[in-house]
């Protein structure tokens, strides 16, 4: 906490006004050129030929419709898997001591550092015809590569760390006191989790879900490799953007891109809002600890 007497800051420890204004102007200009103008241009390009052309680009093409449907299936399934994983991992890591705990945290982070294209290659090496399980699967009539299942696997791999990484620090900050109290009052594991842990960590969990979902929806490299880019079958929205762009159908590519950008902006707004909630939550728990 800050000191009780606030000493007026020495004038010399502040930057002169001209430096402040120059640096601020440069930073604002950079963010405008790098981030704002690109986002605005997505919508301008998408609506360049008017509303009717926009809707036609978006809904008139059955391949594009199927891409949106596929993304709406693949991303939530990947997020659901990683929520289950993230909750389990956070419970094990933030509530217990065991050997290899730090190693486990590093392994959870691994997918962050693997190139998405390499992730795709790994699944090709597993399930492809020359791969480890490919011939066996083929003999049993199971096809994984170039199906939505491969898309889900690749997307889940790439987004493994998101929920766990958010949950672990939040659960560590909150501490086990309330759960121990519930246990001593006779609650069983499930009751402790649903009634005590979940309400406590919910903003951390939602935050993780938001980040995980944004990445899952936008995943490109990994699904590009495992999907085989069959229009109408294994093209997610980002892959459809690529296919239309390659086919010189820029307006349609930008129409789908505008939907993805809108989803990104909504994610960003929700994230900023949840961030405040999350901070309040961990802060109030820390205050409670100081008081007791």
């Amino acid at each position, binding site marked *: 906490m800050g000191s009780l007497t606030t000493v007026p800051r020495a004038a010399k420890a502040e930057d002169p006004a001209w430096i402040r204004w120059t640096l601020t102007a440069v*930073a604002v200009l950079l963010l405008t050129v790098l981030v704002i103008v690109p986002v605005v241009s997505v919508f301008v390009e998408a609506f360049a030929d008017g509303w009717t052309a926009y809707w036609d680009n978006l809904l008139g093409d059955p391949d594009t419709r199927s891409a949106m449907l596929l993304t709406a299936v693949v991303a939530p399934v990947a997020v659901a898997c990683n929520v289950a994983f993230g909750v389990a991992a956070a419970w094990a890591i933030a509530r217990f001591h065991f050997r290899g705990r730090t190693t486990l945290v590093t392994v959870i982070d691994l997918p962050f550092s693997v190139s998405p294209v390499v992730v795709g290659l790994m699944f090709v090496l597993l399930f492809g015809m020359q791969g480890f399980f490919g011939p066996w699967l083929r003999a049993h009539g199971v096809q994984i590569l170039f199906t939505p299942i491969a898309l889900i696997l690749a997307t889940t791999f790439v987004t*493994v760390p998101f929920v766990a990484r958010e949950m672990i620090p939040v659960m560590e*900050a909150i501490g086990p006191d309330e759960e121990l109290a519930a246990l001593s009052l006779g609650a069983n594991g499930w009751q402790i989790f649903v009634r005590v842990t979940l309400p406590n960590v919910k903003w951390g969990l939602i935050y993780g879900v938001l980040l995980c979902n944004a990445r899952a929806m936008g995943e490109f490299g990994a699904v590009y490799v495992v999907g085989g880019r069959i229009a109408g079958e294994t093209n997610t929205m980002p892959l459809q953007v690529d296919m239309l762009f390659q086919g010189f159908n820029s307006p349609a590519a930008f129409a789908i891109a505008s939907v993805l950008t809108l989803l*990104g902006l909504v994610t960003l707004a929700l994230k900023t809002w949840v961030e405040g909630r999350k901070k309040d939550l961990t802060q109030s728990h820390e205050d409670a600890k100081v008081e007791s």
Partner: protein
Amino acid sequence: MAQVNRRVLPGFRLSLGFTLVYLTVLVLVPLAACLLTAASLPRDEFLKAVWTERARAAYALTFVAAFVAAGVSAVLGTLIAWVLVRYDFPLKKFFDAIVDLPFALPTAVAGLVFSNLYVPSGWFGRFLVPMGVEFAYSQAAIVLVMVFIGFPFVVRTLQPVLESLDHETEEAAAMLGAGRWQVFRRVIFPAILPGIVTGFALAFARALGEYGSVVFVSSNIPGKSEIAAVLIVNKLEEFKYVEATAVATVLLFASFLMLAVVNWLERWSRRWDR
């Protein structure tokens, strides 16, 4: 650390068991598949596949572009973080929030937009191209999208470091007669350097493996503007699995090395904390 040493709370075996099985099936088995495939290749065949002229050009371009982009990200990110932490200006919250946009925006969208902005008829291209600045489909465009996806790492690593800086040391230095630039160079910069380096390493690691945005903005010509990730995909499309795996192994080891460096940096920068 708030943890339970004696395993009083229930669910340890269940949660740890699920975590381990999940990670093994989803992450470790595919990783092993890649490394085993690479290891099972005859040595000279592997070395030949790793070190073709085309592959060498791809590594060089990937590493140089990622390094330059991470460097640019470090400079721009430091400046943006500094302004966001130290100064007040209108719409500050808005500008702070949009720093995360590259995390939320699909890379394909970023690639699509950046490929469109700098062509001669694009919003920036129509001013830049007459001035002789040809970004579109050049190697500079690769660096540009890598900066776009990389600079938020620097800003977000540095912001908490700058916020926790102690004003009193700066004041003491100023009282002792140090100029503002001296204070920055001798007092502030050494304190935030580990943060800058960590941000640099994160941006570099991310740029090394980037595919989605680069494939849109680059002309992807083998030996000239083809990065390693694009080379892997091209080899896969020709069903040349050996070469794809060989290049992927190099990329994989490079990113593991970066992961180790980032972990070490984080521990190093926290060495005075306790």
